[in-house]
């Protein structure tokens, strides 16, 4: 309100610099605004999202998977789900998309400063948390990072380049699990909640960040509560059908809240206050 921001719903063209195939379903698009000045001035925060436009397909909200600590380009990781994302997967480097944003309440990195982080992710849910993880690693004074990442099958494991770095980083512990093994997999099999018991984290000095399929989020939130995490220190980010991104169209309603402006980042404490906390 104080900013008196106004919205004209006009996307800005952005050029695909590079496309990284994370797995058969997920691609990461490295993008820069076509207008160089605008691209340099562009800022965002982890947890926020962009409205991405494709010709004739309309718009869809996509979270940043990149960190603002690495400026110049942004990265949006997209899972093929509907007609817009399918069309996006067919694009090549050099093609353009339209971008509006950034929108949404972010993860407040200042609050995470000095705390240990427990990151619990499933599937494409790692994308917005990757933004936080890499942001922390880029910033001095971060605490210990523990990353638990669940995938359906080993070939679905996304962000392998990052995972490789995390697994070799002295301040990071990174565990992977899969729902079903494939030949050559010798890691854990089972839900990501199963990994929670195996890691050493001190709930008092840690903040948990959770993202993944709705059922997984619900299970992990409960498990973290039982581990002794305060509700305020359990953060999650939500996926919703969004049209405006500015809290008007109401497609992303969640009880009395609108995910696009009151979220997408919510603490468990905030969710508990809602009458219908549907994930």
């Amino acid at each position, binding site marked *: *309100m104080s900013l*008196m*921001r*106004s*919205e*004209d*719903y*006009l*996307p*800005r*063209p952005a*050029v695909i610099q590079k496309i990284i195939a994370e797995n058969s379903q997920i691609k990461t698009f490295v993008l820069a605004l*076509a207008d160089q000045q605008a691209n340099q001035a562009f800022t965002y925060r982890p947890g926020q999202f962009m409205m991405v*436009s494709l*010709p*004739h*397909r*309309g*718009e*869809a909200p996509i979270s940043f998977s990149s960190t603002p600590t690495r400026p110049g380009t942004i990265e949006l990781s997209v*899972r093929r*789900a*509907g*007609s*817009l*994302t399918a069309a996006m997967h067919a694009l090549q480097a050099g093609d*353009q*998309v*339209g971008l509006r944003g950034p929108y949404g309440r972010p993860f407040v990195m200042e609050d995470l400063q000095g705390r240990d982080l427990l990151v619990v992710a499933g599937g494409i849910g790692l994308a917005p948390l990757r933004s936080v993880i890499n942001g922390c690693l880029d910033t001095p004074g971060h605490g210990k990072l523990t990353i638990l990442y669940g995938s359906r099958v080993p070939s679905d494991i996304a962000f392998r380049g990052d995972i490789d770095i995390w697994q070799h980083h002295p301040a990071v512990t990174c565990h992977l699990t899969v729902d079903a093994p494939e030949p050559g997999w010798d890691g854990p099999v089972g839900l990501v909640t199963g990994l929670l018991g195996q890691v050493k984290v001190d709930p008092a000095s840690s903040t948990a960040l959770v993202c993944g*399929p*709705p059922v997984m989020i619900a299970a992990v939130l409960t498990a973290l509560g039982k581990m002794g995490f305060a509700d305020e220190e359990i953060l999650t980010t939500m*996926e*919703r*059908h969004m*049209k*405006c991104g*500015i*809290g*008007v*169209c*109401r*497609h*992303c*309603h*969640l*009880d*009395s809240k609108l995910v696009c*402006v009151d979220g997408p980042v919510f603490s468990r404490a905030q969710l508990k206050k809602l*009458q*219908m906390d*549907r*994930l």
Partner: protein
Amino acid sequence: MRDDAMDQAFILAKDHLKSFLRKVKKGHRLVAPVTNQHNDTLFCTINHLDRVPINLTEQAQNGIKSFLFPQQETLATYAVSADGYRFNRTDVRPEPTVYFGVRPCDLMAVLYMDVVFMGGVKDQHYLEKRQDSVLIGLNCNAPFANCFCSATKSGPFLETGFDLMFTDLGDRFLVEIGRPKGREMLQAWQQFFTPAEAEDTRAQYQLSLEAMAGFRLDVYADQAIQRLAAGLVPESVWEQLSLRCQDCAGCAYICPTCTCFTIVDRPAGPDCGERLRSWDACTFAGFTRLAGGHNPVAHKIHAIQTRFLHKLKYDVDKHGRPSCVGCGRCVGICFGGTDIVRFIKMAGED
């Protein structure tokens, strides 16, 4: 007429109404309720004052929502070319508009839309239509069959919120000034107005009392609001409503405060098209369904709940008053008998 004399009320003889509106039309588009040849009374743009009779006795079927927030509007056009993928605004500056004969419920609805579209981030498309508009209200001397604005405290008489407010006193209108735009308008055409006498204000007060007694529906909105706040509305109420709702969204489209919308692209050729915004409704299953098929509002019952909770709980929490203005239009349009009056009644029962 001196400025400090402008806080009092004025009288416009009915004989001068048309003359006044003719002057108003010189600088503005005029929108007022008109009965067409099919006997439908609708707010529409008046091009010729002498050809169309303005109807100030019926309830307009449409309200003025669609003028500020059209059922479908172009947000932008897009084109893909060697230049890339570009969006352009279709630059049609909206004309300054005077809305005349707006009933208290519809007027309150505009104030609510102002909060939705301009309270946080300012929606340019709404703002441009709204900023040059003047609202001239008409108090309701006799509530219509499905009205219940007294229950939602949005009528039948309003004291604020308008630019000018008219009250029909028989052969003359009592005219009150609300906001500065109304004052300017009255000042500009002061030749038609005379100061109101004490008896005029007394007559208006008497009419407002009679209007309060004229409601035909018993609607206890406060009771429903309290029971919703306390979580006392049983699941069976929602179940019954969801079985009965026919999913037509007529309630949302006709509702002066329902502002949910969707945005879609309409191709005009292989490389160009329009981005459109059109009305949507929270009761539709596709409203919340994600591209992958997951729907956080999985059941009809929750979609129905959302509609009524939004109007009678969330907005009460947020703005201190419900966003139902008691116009009763949904009562007339609902197929399944799941309109808000029905809900309020069911929610109030033990």
